[in-house]
């Protein structure tokens, strides 16, 4: 199955080249994006087929347990092209893990392309967007199918650069140039750490293919250093705290379908890179690395949602929620590493499945939410929630699908977000008898942080939906909004339907993911789809089970029956009148709760500790006609404690080194000479 995937990449690159030529024409929108959507559907199919092939092979091995150790899954296919490094070529490989993430890229890419057919019509500078979208998709696909370090890093940089170009699409808008600059620095930093990690992985013998890396046995210290480098490199791309600062700047700056791709898919490709290197290339982890992942995941999830609560820009709020969800995924990965390090394979399979399930879920609902925010942006020209309101009347369909997305990301049953968090909780309560103290403390602490972030996420999405879509319109554009086009709505409806389907039929998703955990750790969750009533049972029925389908049917049936009964037997009359509001309704729309006032209690409870937030109220004296004022002050701890000092240090060093720019040619030659001598000395001492 690898050849069709390679053809898809070639097609995407060709589309990108075509896009350069025709982007100036008005019809380019209707040519490039449908073609992209078709290629992405093909990628989706390829991913599913390769997962299916692995699925049948795992089923085969399950029935033949004696095959065990020598199992080479039949779903794996490889391809070698005579490009890249001359002695190894460019290697591609499609296994279960790559297949799962191909499904993700295909789904995200197809829905974003479909959405963009309509959304792209409003694009002011299509030539800055259209050529880069296929290249971005091609870059992400290449990362997932790469099978040597060179191809991987090349694809990684292609992904970073093409997305950077998309972030800079509207470079004249305020703040976007800064966003692009910060993104570029963080992307280069991430690429650099991964370069070092692969250098250590390949070792002095330069075995750059993944097969050679897997076969090599590295000393534990080297493995530790590689792990830290990979955590930094992939974590900064995925957006873990405190390496997240570029994410809420860059994701909202791009056009909305690209925001959806960056948040929904590109961060997942970073997760893929983490899983590929740590789980596949490095093998069984040490317990301390699990503690690192757990701590990072827990802190990221709560910090991400707290940042989001302080936000009133709809797209930035969604970007901060990406940070939160990346944290939840890392909690799942950390649990899997902790269990795997202690040889508890069933638990590890459960935790890894939970993480991968959340990867899928987040990709779906975050794309949906970014599409919704893009629809709001198209209809009103506003991203600031304080200028919105009442859109449920003007854009009922967008409001409905956005509500589904909000409920899904808030982990509410019967939608999909709940299932993955439920599985993560099941993993947390599974093994209290961990031998290491670091895990004994960090696993329950992560349970608390996960619970906190889930509750805060629900609060945040009540705010996001309530302020933008409910209430009364706060500005003229919001009052005159209009529903968006059919392409955009179709894309959103498809994703909303997937949110519901994955929520009521979670067993299908879990079973589809089982070859991935089987290939990585040699264990998978019990088969779910043959259970009665399609319920899911992670370990044993007496322990825990959940049936999304039945819960959904019960809720739907009892709500419907109750509504019917009340209307039939009690009263069905209703009448419209002005709002009650305790007898003193105020016609001014400014009396409504805004995003800032809605979050004020939470800002007061959590923000004082985390963000050092405070409010200064200035009350004029009696008789003074000046307006009373309230000012809020919020500090960004990551920026102020980490990035500002580093930035200041870099500037100081640059100032100090400034003299070096004004030397004579002889001095420069002397520098070169001294550097050469030093390097030769180092080499001599080394040997």
């Amino acid at each position: 199955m690898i050849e069709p995937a390679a053809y898809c990449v070639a097609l995407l690159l060709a589309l990108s080249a075509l896009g350069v030529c025709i982007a100036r024409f008005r019809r380019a929108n209707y040519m490039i994006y449908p073609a992209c959507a078709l290629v992405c559907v093909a990628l989706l199919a390829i991913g599913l087929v390769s997962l299916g092939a692995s699925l049948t092979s795992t089923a085969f091995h399950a029935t033949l347990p004696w095959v065990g150790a020598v199992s080479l899954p039949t779903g794996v296919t490889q391809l070698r092209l005579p490009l890249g490094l001359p002695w190894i070529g460019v290697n591609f490989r499609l296994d279960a893990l790559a297949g799962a993430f191909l499904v993700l890229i295909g789904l995200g890419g197809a829905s974003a392309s479909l959405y963009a057919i309509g959304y792209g019509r409003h694009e002011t500078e299509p030539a800055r967007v259209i050529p880069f979208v296929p290249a971005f998709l091609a870059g992400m696909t290449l990362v997932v199918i790469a099978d040597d370090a060179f191809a991987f890093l090349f694809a990684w940089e292609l992904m970073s650069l093409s997305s950077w170009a998309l972030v800079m699409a509207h470079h004249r808008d305020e703040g976007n140039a800064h966003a692009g600059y910060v993104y570029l620095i963080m992307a280069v930093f991430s690429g650099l750490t991964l370069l070092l990690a692969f250098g250590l992985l390949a070792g002095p013998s330069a075995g750059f293919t993944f097969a050679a890396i897997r076969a090599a046995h590295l000393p534990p210290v080297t493995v530790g250093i590689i792990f830290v480098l990979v955590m930094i490199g992939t974590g900064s791309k995925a957006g873990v705290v405190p390496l997240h600062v570029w994410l809420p700047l860059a994701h909202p700056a791009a056009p909305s379908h690209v925001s959806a791709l960056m948040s929904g898919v590109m961060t997942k490709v970073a997760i893929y890179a983490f899983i590929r290197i740590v789980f596949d290339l490095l093998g069984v982890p040490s317990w301390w690395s699990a503690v690192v992942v757990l701590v990072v995941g827990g802190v990221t999830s709560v910090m991400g949602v707290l940042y989001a609560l302080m936000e009133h820009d709809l797209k930035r709020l969604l970007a901060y929620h990406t940070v939160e969800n990346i944290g939840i995924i890392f909690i799942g990965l950390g649990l899997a590493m902790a269990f795997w390090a202690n040889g508890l394979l069933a638990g590890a399979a459960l935790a890894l499945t939970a993480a991968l399930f959340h990867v899928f879920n987040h990709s779906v609902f975050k794309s949906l939410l970014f599409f919704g925010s893009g629809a709001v942006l198209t209809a009103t020209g506003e991203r600031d929630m304080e200028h919105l309101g009442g859109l449920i009347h003007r854009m009922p369909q967008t409001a409905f699908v956005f509500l589904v997305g909000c409920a899904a990301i808030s982990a509410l049953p019967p939608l999909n977000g709940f299932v993955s968090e439920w599985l993560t909780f099941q993993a947390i309560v599974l093994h209290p008898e961990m031998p290491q103290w670091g895990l004994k403390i960090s696993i329950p602490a992560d349970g608390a942080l996960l619970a906190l972030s889930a509750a805060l996420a629900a609060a945040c999405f009540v705010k996001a939906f309530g302020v933008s879509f409910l209430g009364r319109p706060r500005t003229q554009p919001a009052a005159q909004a209009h529903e968006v086009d059919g392409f955009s709505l179709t894309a959103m409806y498809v994703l909303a339907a997937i949110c519901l389907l994955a929520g009521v039929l979670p067993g299908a998703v879990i079973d589809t993911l089982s070859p991935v955990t089987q290939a990585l750790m040699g264990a998978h969750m019990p088969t779910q789809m043959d259970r009665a009533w399609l319920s899911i049972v992670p370990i044993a029925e007496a322990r825990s089970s959940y049936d999304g389908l039945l819960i959904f049917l019960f809720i739907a049936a009892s709500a419907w029956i109750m509504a019917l009964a009340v209307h039939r037997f009690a009263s069905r009359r209703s009448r419209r009148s002005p709002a009650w509001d305790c007898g003193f309704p105020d016609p001014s729309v400014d009396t409504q709760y805004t995003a800032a006032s809605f979050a004020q209690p939470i800002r007061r409870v959590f923000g004082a500790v985390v963000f050092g937030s405070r409010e200064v109220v200035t009350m004029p004296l009696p008789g003074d006609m000046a307006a009373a004022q309230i000012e809020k002050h919020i500090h960004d701890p990551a920026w102020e404690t980490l990035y500002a000092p580093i930035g200041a240090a870099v500037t100081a060093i640059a100032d100090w080194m400034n003299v070096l720019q004004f030397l004579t040619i002889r001095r420069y030659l002397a520098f070169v000479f001294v550097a050469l001598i030093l390097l030769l000395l180092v080499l001599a001492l080394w040997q």
Partner: protein
Amino acid sequence: MMDAQLIPDLLIQGVQMTSVLVLAPLLTGLVRIVKARLQRRRGPPLWQPYRDLRRLLGKEVVLAENASWLFRAAPYLIFAVTWVAAALIPTFATGLLFSWSGDLIAITALLGSARFMLALAGMDIGTSFGGIGSSREVMIASLAEPAMLMIVITVALVAGSTQLSTIAVVMATHHVGLRVSLALALIAFIIVALAENARIPVDNPATHLELTMVHEAMVLEYSGRHLAMIDLAAFLKLSLYVSLIWCMFCPFGMAQGDWAQSGWGIGYYLLAMPIYLAKLAVGGVLLGVLEVSIAKMRVFRVPNFLGAAFMLGLLGVLLLFVSQGM
């Protein structure tokens, strides 16, 4: 699953679902009467909540001019979600037919869904009262829900299951004994239950027109059958929490699933039902006594109160991770 077994199982599940629905207003009436008697008032009769519901159901709905479809659909959804959550709790018998379709985490999350809908409905009209109610409700929930999940994890670690039926069986039959972690969880759970049901000291269910109100501010714009649905959901939630306390911490006198097969048949269920009624009554009286004996808190002291519950829950979990016997 045998067909011969299916009919009685369905019947018992049906009795459970109907009984929680029918008994819920009675519990609220009982709490009100206990509070009134302790304040030397006569108070409303026990069945006043039923009368209120009937009166509200018969009235016409007055909708604000800019109420959306969400405002009209929310009451039925809130009711349905709360009812499904209540149906999943073993009240008088364990091992109910559909009890495996959701565990304790799912019940917590279902109540979260109901709250999500209610908070949104509060913001739909765009009045300042709705906003204040929703904003404070989510602030309270942002601490109460994690505290609840910590309690769930504590109980799940002790019982080795998040399934309520299994928890009840383990707590009732095995030798669990007195445990520090369970005691912490019980205290935390009582705090969470007070907050979730908008009781004193967190919120006052008997006020209108007061700036400290949370739940009542959210539902201020509701009237008629919509308000009846929301009130019924609130009654259900109270009885759900009282049942949950008994089910998790003192599940004695419940009909176990295997009793039915032991030849006694329906007799156990007939015995278990009055025990459940007595449990509800004890819970109601204790709640009434608690409510008259303490004052309502300032709204910004509520986070400290709930934070204590969260910390107690976390402490219980940590104790169990450190030592299985705690």
